[in-house]
């Protein structure tokens, strides 16, 4: 019954979305207000209808209806309620349905807004979002149905279907297979929805760009409307990436945060183009440059979003993210090619209408810095694409699959990330329009010299790794110039207007929230870079088997193994917890409890590191092995990860900065809105 509601919701959503696609296309062509209104209503109704499907699936998951294959595969009786609900995105079918629902939600809120002068974009926006949604609803309904059940036929074969096959009875398992214990982590519970919000969020700016191309409204309108959308999508995508990284650090048990895994990269690629787009969109708004490039970037981001969903879902690449091989690969491929060709065809068609009215006059101007930024992000994208597609192409060309691993990505991207840091350091010193090398150089060399202080201290502290020193210098410089520029502007305003500094700062941030939000994001990124420098260059490690009371030492710390406790828990876990005292100079710092949980049903064990985390370093203790009966000996592996906490702190600053940039700008009331919007 409940499953029927869910399935019915999907069928109705298929009909309404198809209606929206057809009526919006016809209405857009014939400029018929009635047809467009029909399309609008069809697009609006899809969201509540899909919500019904989501609620139905959530109900099935929560109530343990194991005759539904999806419920069986992702939950079991011993799981707490919040995990049962989070199983909505724990497997293929559910997460695709979730994807549809999010996209329908975004479409709903964009279509429900008040449409004024830009109403000629409306039908094409509906067409683009609904067509994408249609594709995913078809996938869910016909290939990956979360509402299919198990049936046993007379000859004892178990089949998965929604409608009962002939001569069969419903099979109801007494318990489910349960969510993989490795996924039972806070970061993993909100990582997929954040990532999916980012993915689906980028469909909206794409739809507007598409609408601009079809309707011929090739001014900056589409860009301005979607400014907040792109930023919001980017925020979620960034959050999703960071949360995944945090999950890897906490759960996967080797203290790693990023493994250049194909699935990680496929989520990184739309982030790269999305970040480039955020920058070049500013350039178009300020200087009317890069019109073609912006459309190309947002189309590319959209295609990479679909590709990312496809790569994570098709099992085409070898990856730690284990998903089943699936038949939906070719469908994705066709969809991406179709959207790509239509969009780029339209872009070529409107090429001359999109001509820039302006050009870059100086290599040292801010728009030029934004151009370099875009080139660097594009180069990073090319590296990622090369790495991901290399196995496929090498097999096609030579018959031998050749893959590349993390060392390839590290050596290829490191110089570019360094250049991006440098660019972040330079950009606050540049100006829009004109700028000369002398002007820029005069500001830069003083800052560059001042920023040398930090690597010098690090050098005197005994570090002789030149790459690390260079990286530290770049991070310092980026933060220094950003803070300095803010300080100068604030004090200038305060002295000009006889205002208290605090008030001047508040007013500036409110009025130029994008700029200072952007600055905060840059500082966040620089701090993240600091964390990465710490763990990449200065990680130390030791391991050993200890009897109770024995000690290991690492980088000035000592680790004393005290005891081990093994307990059986009511929720189907067997837990082992060692207690280890961390000391430095005979001073007790913290007692940590590294351990391991073994889940009986799945026979899956999960390593739980004991971590002492400070701003200076993380001490990451892993219980590798132990003797179950006597508590004689246990083996530990210990990592010291310097500065890693700055990676998470920087991420927090980045998120906060994005929120600042998203905050509505206060304008002075007596100044009319920009001329463009009056037109």
């Amino acid at each position, binding site marked *: 019954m409940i499953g029927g509601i869910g399935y019915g919701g999907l069928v109705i959503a298929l009909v309404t979305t198809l209606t929206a696609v057809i009526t919006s296309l016809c209405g857009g062509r014939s400029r018929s207000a009635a047809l467009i209104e029909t399309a609008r209503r069809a697009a609006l109704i899809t969201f509540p209808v899909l919500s019904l499907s989501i609620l139905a699936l959530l109900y099935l998951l929560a109530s343990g209806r194991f005759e539904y294959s999806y419920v069986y595969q992702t939950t079991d009786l011993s799981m707490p309620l919040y995990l049962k609900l989070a199983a909505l995105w724990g497997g293929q079918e559910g997460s695709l349905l979730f994807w549809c629902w999010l996209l329908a939600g975004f479409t709903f809120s964009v279509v429900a807004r008040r449409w004024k002068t830009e109403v000629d974009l409306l039908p094409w926006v509906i067409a683009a979002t609904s067509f994408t949604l249609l594709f995913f609803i078809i996938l869910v309904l016909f290939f990956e149905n979360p509402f299919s059940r*198990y049936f046993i036929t007379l000859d004892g074969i178990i089949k998965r279907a929604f409608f009962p096959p002939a001569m069969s009875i419903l099979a109801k398992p007494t318990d489910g297979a349960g969510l993989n214990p490795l996924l039972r982590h806070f970061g993993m519970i909100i990582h997929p929805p954040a990532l999916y919000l980012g993915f689906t969020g980028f469909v909206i700016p794409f739809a507007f760009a598409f609408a601009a191309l079809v309707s011929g409204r090739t001014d900056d309108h589409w860009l301005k409307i979607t400014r907040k959308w792109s930023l919001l999508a980017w925020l979620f995508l960034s959050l999703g990436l960071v949360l995944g990284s945090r999950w890897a650090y906490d759960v996967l048990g080797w203290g790693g945060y990023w493994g250049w895994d194909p699935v990680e990269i496929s989520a990184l690629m739309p982030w790269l183009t999305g970040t480039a787009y955020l920058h070049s969109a500013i350039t178009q708004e300020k200087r009317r440059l890069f019109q073609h490039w912006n459309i190309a970037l947002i189309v590319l981001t959209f295609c990479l979003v679909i590709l990312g969903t496809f790569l994570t879902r098709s099992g085409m690449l070898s990856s730690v993210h284990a998903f089943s091989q699936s038949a939906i690969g070719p469908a994705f491929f066709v969809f991406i090619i179709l959207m790509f060709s239509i969009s780029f065809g339209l872009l070529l068609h409107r090429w001359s209408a999109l001509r820039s009215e302006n050009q870059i006059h100086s290599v040292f101007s801010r728009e030029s810095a934004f151009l370099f930024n875009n080139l660097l992000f594009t180069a990073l994208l090319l590296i990622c694409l090369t790495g991901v597609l290399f196995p496929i192409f090498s097999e096609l060309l030579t018959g031998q699959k050749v893959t590349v691993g993390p060392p390839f990505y590290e050596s*290829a991207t490191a110089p570019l990330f360094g250049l991006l840091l440098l660019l972040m350091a330079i950009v606050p010193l540049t100006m829009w329009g004109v700028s000369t090398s002398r002007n820029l150089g005069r500001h830069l060399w003083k800052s560059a010299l001042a920023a040398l202080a930090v690597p010098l201290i690090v050098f005197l502290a005994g570090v002789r790794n030149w790459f690390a020193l260079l990286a530290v210098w770049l991070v310092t410089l980026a933060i220094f110039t950003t803070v300095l520029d803010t300080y100068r502007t604030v004090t200038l305003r305060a002295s000009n207007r006889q205002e208290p500094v605090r008030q001047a700062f508040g007013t500036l941030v409110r009025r130029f929230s994008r700029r200072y939000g952007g600055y905060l994001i840059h500082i966040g990124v620089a701090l993240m870079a600091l964390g990465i420098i710490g763990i990449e260059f200065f990680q130390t490690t030791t391991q050993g088997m200890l009897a109770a009371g024995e000690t290991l030492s690492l980088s000035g710390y000592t680790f004393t193994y005290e005891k081990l406790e093994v307990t059986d828990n009511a929720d189907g876990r067997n837990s082992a917890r060692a207690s280890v005292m961390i000391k430095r100079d005979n001073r007790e710092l913290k007692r940590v409890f590294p351990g391991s949980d073994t889940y009986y049903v799945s026979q899956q064990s999960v390593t739980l590191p004991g971590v002492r985390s400070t701003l200076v370093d993380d001490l990451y203790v892993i219980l590798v092995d132990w003797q179950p009966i006597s508590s004689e000996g246990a083996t530990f592996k210990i990592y010291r990860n310097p500065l890693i906490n700055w990676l998470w702190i920087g991420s927090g600053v980045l998120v906060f900065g994005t929120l600042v940039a998203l905050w509505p700008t206060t304008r002075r009331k007596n100044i009319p809105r920009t001329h463009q919007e009056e037109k």
Partner: protein
Amino acid sequence: MNKSPRAVEPHPRFKINKFAIGGVLLLAAVVLLVVTSLKGNAQYYLTVEELASGKGVNNANVRVSGVVLGDTIQYDPQTLDLTFTIAHIPGDNREIEAGGGLANVLHNASLDPQAARLKVRYNGVMPDLLKNEAQAILTGAMGDDGVFNAEELLLKCPSRYEAEVPAQAVP
């Protein structure tokens, strides 16, 4: 808008060329970066059968995928020396699909006594996912003794994640 006083540019051709040259140089630099990074880090992705037939034996950097045989896992917690054996699974996606999906292929390969096998040696923490019928993707090189020295272990358990059919189904 904020038209700058220098908006009238006397040498537009020159400017375009400067940016074009810059772009080409940057592209060349990126290509060079990719190529040099590829050279040192490309890994042959082989199946156990290919490796057993002598392919890639002299290669310092090989990637091999197979199914873990649970009974063969041996771990010495003192030295962190880990050894286990993997059995051949096809490397081709189409072959895997034809074999009834990855979970089935892994299951059948682990039971097939005819499947080519490879002994693996690794030093480090034993991964939680290392167990019977897990798919192992190993990076490393063949040793002289015919044992594969793995530098890196990557493990997947698709059978756990998406069981096709419930084992304890009751009508």
